């Protein structure tokens, strides 16, 4: 029984940590976040050069066969730096969908494009009426002679406006809440009838509302089997939650450490506020919350890696706790930073906003608490 990283894993961790340390100051992050596309193309090239974009793919696909542990390592460091590059939407979401559902030629073209940084792909799964249910799909694809015609709307599509290609969940059969009848389609952002409205999110990232009006795609736009995408989507959602929670755990670590450091500097009533016992105990609670979330992260990641029977329960527990504890730690961090915590000069508020976004993506704390209860009763 050990929780030690392998040599390769340690190298990966050091490589990402070093980049964040040296190249990813909060100021630089803010500048990139405020650029046109919302991140740095140069950083993205660096990610590709350093081999980070290929991590989760098999050697045949051109990757290094990294598993959930490698993903956790990277995302935790990204979380410390509040990375804005579209790693999550492009590599974690789209990469995993292609790896799981893509045929040989789709993988050859698109995964290669992800790995060398030339293709930007995102996953358009969310709809405004769906709240957190990934199977609540109303956007329709109807078969015709040339393939399919897509009509409908997707909402909060991460980095949707800078993507070349969208993987879209559509309904080819059944009713809105049915598990059966959901299909994945590859739709070029430039296709006729695709209208993309960019928006900024509070965490300094980007999303888009995408409208499909009689969008005609070929039959080979199909990713995986028609009507059977629900299972793939659920599997990818598991990986997505592990990645997002790892990111949040990284952010929580940064938050409690920054808060401890700030209290040692900040003076009130003539003394450093780190000396106030009430604040000390609250910072101990922040530390404890981080350690407990880190434990749930390790538990979920290792059980996913081992294919344990209780993996769904472990992930639900993690997503719930990261949602609740992440917000608590971030709120305390803002509070203890006082007025400075309200400013964009300090990064603490940005961590709060990112943690809130992570809580919401793929279902918030209550959603997963309910899932955990349902799984416990089953």
């Amino acid at each position, binding site marked *: 029984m050990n929780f030690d990283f392998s040599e390769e894993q340690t190298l990966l961790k050091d490589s990402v940590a070093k980049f964040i340390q040296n190249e990813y100051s909060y100021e630089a992050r803010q500048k990139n976040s405020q650029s046109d596309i919302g991140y740095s193309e140069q950083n993205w090239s660096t990610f590709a050069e350093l081999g980070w974009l290929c991590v989760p793919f098999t050697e045949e696909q051109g990757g290094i066969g990294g598993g959930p542990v490698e993903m956790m390592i990277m995302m935790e460091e990204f979380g410390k730096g509040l990375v804005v590059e579209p790693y999550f939407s492009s590599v974690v979401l789209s990469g995993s969908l292609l790896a799981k559902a893509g045929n040989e030629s789709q993988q050859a073209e698109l995964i290669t494009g992800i790995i060398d940084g030339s293709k930007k792909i995102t996953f358009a799964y969310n709809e405004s009426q769906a709240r957190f249910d990934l199977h609540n799909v109303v956007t329709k694809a109807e078969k015709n002679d040339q393939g399919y015609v897509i009509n409908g709307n997707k909402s909060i599509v991460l980095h949707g406006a800078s993507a070349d290609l969208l993987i879209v969940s559509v309904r080819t059969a059944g009713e809105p809440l049915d598990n059966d009848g959901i299909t994945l389609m590859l739709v070029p952002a430039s296709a006729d009838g695709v209208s993309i409205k960019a928006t900024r999110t509070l965490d300094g990232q980007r999303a888009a509302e995408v409208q499909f009006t009689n969008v005609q795609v070929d039959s080979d736009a199909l990713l995986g089997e028609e009507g059977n995408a629900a299972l793939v989507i659920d599997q990818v959602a598991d990986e997505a939650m592990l990645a997002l929670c790892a990111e949040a755990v990284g952010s929580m670590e940064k938050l409690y450490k920054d808060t401890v450091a700030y209290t040692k500097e900040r003076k009130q009533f003539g003394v450093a506020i780190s000396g106030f016992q009430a604040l000390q105990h609250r910072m101990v609670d922040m530390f404890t919350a981080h350690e407990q979330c880190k434990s749930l992260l390790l538990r979920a990641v290792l059980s996913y890696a081992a294919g344990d029977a209780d993996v769904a329960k472990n992930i639900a527990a993690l997503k719930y706790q990261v949602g609740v504890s992440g917000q608590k730690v971030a709120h305390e961090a803002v509070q203890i930073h006082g007025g400075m915590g309200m*400013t*964009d000069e300090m990064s603490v508020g940005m961590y709060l906003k990112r943690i809130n976004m992570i809580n919401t993506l793929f279902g918030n704390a*209550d959603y997963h608490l309910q899932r955990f209860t349902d799984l416990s009763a089953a």
Partner: protein
Amino acid sequence: MDIQFTSEDLAFQKEVRAFFSENVTDEIRRGYTGGEVDPAIMVKWQKILHKQGWVAPNWPADIGGTGWTITQKYIFENECAESGAPSVIPFGLKMVAPVIYTFGSDEQKKRFLPDILESNVWWCQGYSEPGAGSDLAALQTKAELDGDHYVVNGQKIWTTYAQDADWIFCLVRTSSEGKRQAGISFLLIDMKTPGVEVRKIDTIDNQHTLNEVFFDNVRVPVENRIGEENKGWTYAKVLLTHERTAIAGVAQSKKGIQKLREFAAQEKVGAGVLADDPLFAAKIAKVEIDLMALEYTELRAIASVSAGGAPGPESSILKIRGTEIQQAVSELTIEACGHYAHVINDGEAIGNDMSWVASAKYLYGRASTIYGGSNEVQKNIIAKMVLGL
């Protein structure tokens, strides 16, 4: 023991409700939605209130106040929140005016009060400094006498709405001898005076509310000092006390919960709505119960004062619980809004009225437990003053 409204009170309530119903338009409501204000709308609204004679309920009746009983004031506040009308900007009407009419000279009263009453001038508050947050007495902005002027140098921070202000009321250090509190004076400064510079603070809510104000050899006539030199702390304390009792925000939180319930009743979750989710319903219930308690805690404090007594120990918790409840309501509201609470309202219509206001209120509201004496400082005060620890 009697908390029933008298028939006079009920008649008053009817009158107030009619006034709000007639005058509070959607435009007026947009004057303040949770963070930034629209100064033009606010001035318009305050002038409407002034025309009615209701803009300054707390002032003495002979100089523009209403002479209302404390129950009437309570009714007014509640109806105001219920109508969705913005509260008046407090810096002039509620903060500097009481200091002026209580401690100012006759000349100062004549010079400043009418413009405040008519909302002709916009005030801001210069108390906090970078090194003096909850520990206000640590302030260091200096005012040195030079003939019949003070020369002011230093910096204020967290100055709400300073970007629109004509005047600022400041605590400045006029002596460094003796107790820190004993060397502070209360100055009124024209923001147009050379050497005054306002810089926006970029805040996490992406709105422009807070500022830094810099003073570089700003010359302020001695006649702009309120009361005696080095006694400013005494005057400010009166004002601070006022700030801390007005901070519970019960009526606003009530309105917030009502809106939240309405939203949850139509926000779809699968085949049902969010309001039917037992866990979410329980969270709303809990905060509503907290607020029901706070409402009566406030009434108890009001009743004590109304009877001519000092507010009881229960009044000390109004700020702590009031701000905690405001934050809890705002947290539930962004939770209700789902993904759309995390979208910036930049003109593209993604999200909805509820979600934009929700996130602005939520983020700006993080400050409510920090300003006006942080909740930690409030607890220190209660421990000492109420519990004798």
